[in-house]
């Protein structure tokens, strides 16, 4: 069986498993599945920005928080239906993400990291400051969302999240294979070469930040439906690092890598059943290990192996 067929088979098996989960799994399994799906959405967006376009963002979790709070406040306080609140959350985060691209135009990795770090901090401070709106550090309790007046049941919510995630993953895949994905990769590798090919680095970064933010906003909006409560400490720097771990371990620049990383690394702490701190140690150790020993991640390493084997077969030096 060729590598491609194997990959397709694996994807088909995973899809079947995902579809059948509510049938054989407990409600906890379904909840876990939803969390995995939300993490997949966040990871796909971040990977397009960081893995493909090469822009460091330490505030992806903050953008997800903003999406969550926007959707939550609209449904809980303003009585907006979830169907409208979710897109609204996405729009808000996309605009914020787009504004982050302006510093990115002229700043390289380290300094861009600082800007995103500053943004992360400002968002944390804002969440605390506007506590009558956001619930501050105590968090925000949410109303269970409904679609067209009918509240989500356990299984219908799961399938909703599954479908939305699948669409988001396909969207991410399409972008990556499109002229924009190629432009992202070009800007990452060399702004000068990109410009020689008539690709505008500033505009491409704007697009990358906007798309990543949109995915974060979507993930945040889904979060409000799945989890009944927003705890702002869940969206701090360690949350951003966790998302970065997904894409580094899964494979930078690969949509499949984002999915693999999100699945594996969301399941892992479940297997460990520890306090948050143990989770942090494990994630960070895995991240560090991947960065030092296997920077291409799971998918990247497999892909390299495959193309080296192909090249050897074709008789190239």
């Amino acid at each position, binding site marked *: 069986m060729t590598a491609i067929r194997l990959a397709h088979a694996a994807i088909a098996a995973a899809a079947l498993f995902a579809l059948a989960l509510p049938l054989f799994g407990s409600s906890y399994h379904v909840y876990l599945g939803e969390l995995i799906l939300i993490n997949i959405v966040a990871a796909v967006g971040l990977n397009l920005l960081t893995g493909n376009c090469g822009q460091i963002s330490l505030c992806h979790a903050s953008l997800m928080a903003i999406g969550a709070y926007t959707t939550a406040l609209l449904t809980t306080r303003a009585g907006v239906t979830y169907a409208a609140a979710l897109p609204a959350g996405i729009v808000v985060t996309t605009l914020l993400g787009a504004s982050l691209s302006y510093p990115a135009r002229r700043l390289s990795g380290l300094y861009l990291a600082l800007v995103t770090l500053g943004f992360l901090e400002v968002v944390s401070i804002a969440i605390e400051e506007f506590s009558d709106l956001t619930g501050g550090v105590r968090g925000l309790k949410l109303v269970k969302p409904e679609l067209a007046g009918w509240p989500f049941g356990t299984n219908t919510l799961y399938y909703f999240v599954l479908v939305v995630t699948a669409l988001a993953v*396909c*969207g991410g895949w*399409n*972008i990556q294979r*499109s*002229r*924009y994905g*190629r*432009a992202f*990769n*070009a800007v990452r*590798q*060399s702004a*000068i*070469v*990109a*410009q*020689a*090919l*008539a*690709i*505008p*680095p500033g505009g491409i970064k704007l*697009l990358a930040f906007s*798309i990543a933010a949109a995915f974060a906003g979507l993930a945040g909006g889904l979060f409000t439906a799945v989890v009944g409560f927003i705890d702002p400490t869940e969206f701090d720097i360690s949350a951003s690092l966790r998302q970065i771990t997904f894409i580094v371990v899964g494979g930078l620049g690969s949509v499949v890598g984002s999915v693999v990383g999100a699945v594996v690394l969301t399941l892992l702490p479940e297997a460990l059943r520890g306090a948050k701190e143990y989770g942090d140690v494990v994630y960070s150790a895995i991240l560090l290990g991947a960065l030092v020993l296997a920077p291409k991640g799971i998918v990247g390493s497999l892909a390299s192996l495959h*193309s080296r084997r*192909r*090249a050897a077969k*074709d008789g*190239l*030096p």
Partner: protein
Amino acid sequence: MSLLRLDDVFVNFGGVAAVRGVTMRVEAGEIRGLIGPNGAGKTSLINAITGIVPANGGAVVFAGHDITALAPDVISGRGIGRTFQHVELFREESVLDNVLTGLYRHHVYGVLAAITGFGSARRVEDAARREAAALLDAFALASLAAAPVSDLPFGIQKRVDLARALAVRPRLLLLDEPISGMSESEADAAIATIRTLARERAITLLVVEHNMRVMMRLAERITVMHQGAIIAEGTPAEIRDNPAVVEAYLGDEDDDA
């Protein structure tokens, strides 16, 4: 009207005047050589034309439009392409993807179309792939389309660089040391390819080389730079016998880089 006109261009680089008052005209259809010893200012001049480096004085006029202060990607979009001395391909990507990236500006569809993957995006992508395939064929790269470029020998990488630069559909192509690093036979093949290319696709070439022998065979007219200024301009025969040129090259004998 000349295709490219440089009027008294100055470029300062780290406190040094890398280009001092260069005035030159390149006519459409020419194969113009730009030659000079190391440090003559050739690369700075190329960078000023392509907008990577700002010109500190003078003007760069392309097809009648002043492009001096334009952003590099806009200048490329206007029809100026370039290759790079050290190739600068997207190393982990395939030959095909490298060339496809060059077609960014010519096969356009919007972001929403890209995300949904239907309709115009699919059609335009197919057209782009066809054009990329044609370019690969023209450079005998078709069999290597899927190969990651980092695996390929240097001479082939140079061909990919050239194919990618042509994907931009330039009217003026700047070739930065296209022959450097090549063996004798590779160089012969490359020179032949470049000449054919220029003729068939009606592209004007500005070739930067510091190897005099290569330049003599490739260019129709040659501009010689030394220490930031132009010291001679003429046909290969005129340049070869020019005492100022000979003197500039003393101590910088024909090195086959």
